């Protein structure tokens, strides 16, 4: 056992403090917003709320729920996550299996792989994408939120690489026993890939939950907004026409409007599902990103 030198001890101490400080910085803003949302609005507006509520009240949450659009947007988001993730996963699994084959087993593998990969290399851009969806008459429907992102190409690549790591013998012996590709995929590959699939489900859930821009431009009626889009219109965007002639002082007061506690409550309500999912995210996602980035 080597005794730690004084320099080492000092370093350790500073290191621990530094890391703790940065970890604190990562969550302090969120704690602050949560505290603001639970404080009386006069104190919040005065800026006296730091990391603990001042004059605790849930008034702002009561007020937030009075808006029918909040509940409807929760509904749209949940619907979107369920449909969207189901489609994402089904297609990811279907695509990853053929692409995980060697060229001699599936001669068109490389062609299909490039067909998918090109969509990562080159984007058509916002306007052609938007016009396409409009021409397809998908505007204002839930399908506009789930179909354009139905094939998550990166997830397909992650899963196909995972499939490739599984022992080949399993597939071969199943094939000897007369199993077709469909059976091999659903009876052997999928059950063996549960941890990888769990990671991808979580990724897909977070992606769908967090998307807001498509809702903003593709949904016409506010009742069809998913939650993040609702939040965007409520908390972030302010009337640009009001800003046009505003002075700097007016701008400042506009950005610090008195409904600060309400906004904080809305922000926290939108982040809540992700926070609930976080323990699971944590468990799987380290595996997931390692799976994606460090591979042989």
């Amino acid at each position, binding site marked *: 056992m080597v005794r730690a030198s004084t320099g*080492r001890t000092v*370093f*350790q101490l500073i*290191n621990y403090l530094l*890391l703790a400080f*940065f*970890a604190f910085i*990562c969550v*302090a*803003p969120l704690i602050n*917003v949560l505290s603001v949302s639970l404080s009386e609005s006069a104190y919040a*507006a005065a*800026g006296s709320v730091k990391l603990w509520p001042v004059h605790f009240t849930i008034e702002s949450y009561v007020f937030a729920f009075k808006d029918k659009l909040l509940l409807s947007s929760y509904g749209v988001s949940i619907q979107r996550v369920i449909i969207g993730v189901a489609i994402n996963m089904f*297609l990811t699994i*279907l695509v990853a299996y*053929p*692409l995980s*084959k060697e060229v001699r087993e*599936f001669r*068109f593998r490389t062609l299909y792989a490039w067909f*998918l990969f090109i969509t990562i*290399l*080159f*984007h*058509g*851009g*916002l*306007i*052609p994408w938007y*016009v*396409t*969806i*409009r*021409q397809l008459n998908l505007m204002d429907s839930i399908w506009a939120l789930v*179909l354009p992102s*139905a094939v998550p190409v990166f997830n397909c*690549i992650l899963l196909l*690489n995972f499939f490739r790591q599984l022992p080949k013998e399993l597939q071969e012996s199943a094939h000897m026993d007369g199993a077709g590709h469909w059976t091999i995929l659903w009876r052997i590959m999928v059950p063996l890939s549960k941890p990888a699939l769990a990671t991808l489900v979580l990724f897909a859930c977070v992606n769908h939950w*967090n*998307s*807001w*821009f498509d809702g903003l*431009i593709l949904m016409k009626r506010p009742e069809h907004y998913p939650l993040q889009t609702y939040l965007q219109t409520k*908390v972030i965007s302010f009337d640009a026409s009001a800003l*046009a002639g505003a002075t*700097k002082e007016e*701008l400042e007061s506009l*950005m*610090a409007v008195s409904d*600060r506690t309400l*906004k*904080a409550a809305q*922000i926290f309500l*939108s982040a809540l599902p*992700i926070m609930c999912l976080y323990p699971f*995210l944590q468990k799987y996602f*380290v595996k997931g*990103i*390692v799976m994606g980035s*460090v591979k042989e």
Partner: protein
Amino acid sequence: MKKHNFGKGLMREWPMHLMMLPAVLLIILFSYIPYAGLAIAFERFNPSKGFFGSPFVGWDNFEYMIKMPGISQVIWNTVYIACMKMVGGLIVPIVFALLLNEVIHTKFKRAVQTLIYLPHFLSWVILGGVLTDILSPSGGLVNSLIGWFGAEPVFFLGNEKLFPYVLAVSDIWKEFGFGTIIYLAAITSINPVLYEAAICDGANRWRQIWHITLPGMTPIIVLMMTLSLGNVLNAGFDQVFNLYSPVVYRTGDILDTLVYRLGLIDAQYGVATAVGLFKSVVSTVFIVISYICAFRFANYRIF
């Protein structure tokens, strides 16, 4: 003989073609048809006439784009903001992973990890709301802290000079935890025998980091570095859109937000598509270069 093989292959492979079919159709619909829609960049687009029915105007939209006042500033903003994020987003997680690796107490280590990648999972809408609140000049958390040191409150999101740096710092704040995990995984995969050997040879902690940990991380560092190259024109639409306002357009407007305003607010489809196409082409060049580099230097193959 060959033909016979082909038929046999088709018999054997058709289930796999069938598996690809739905995805292929959806990708054609939502990725490849928009490629055809890039024709808009060369047209005076009329939505009722479709992609190919509108009058063709050649390079007019691009000429308009080049002559647009402030376009060079927007391109500069995009590259400047993106590069700050790329450099900071590379260095901060590496340093943090090295520091975290020095921690002996597993519980402390795990607690820190848990906290630092929480912001990664929250959308820029939520974080935009959070940042607007804590950076507010009247009663925001950050300005109250600055106030304790006797300084005047700073209007972070309304100050042209500061705005790009606010973007860079807040993006690094959101993402560094995610990067740290990747580097930490690389560090833990280093063979501990190497450290034991180094200790026998009398290497102190610094030497161990310099001669074992960093070289062990090099492949993943090179990989992350090269792959980030493709983001040179991705200054982060979600973030900028949720934080900027007309007062900071001069330093904060980027290509993606410009495309949005030109196309979807002003309905100048042709010019907006032209700007978007310009961005896509340049990005693709960088992405291809980055993948070639990643393959050359880190032996990385995407599939």
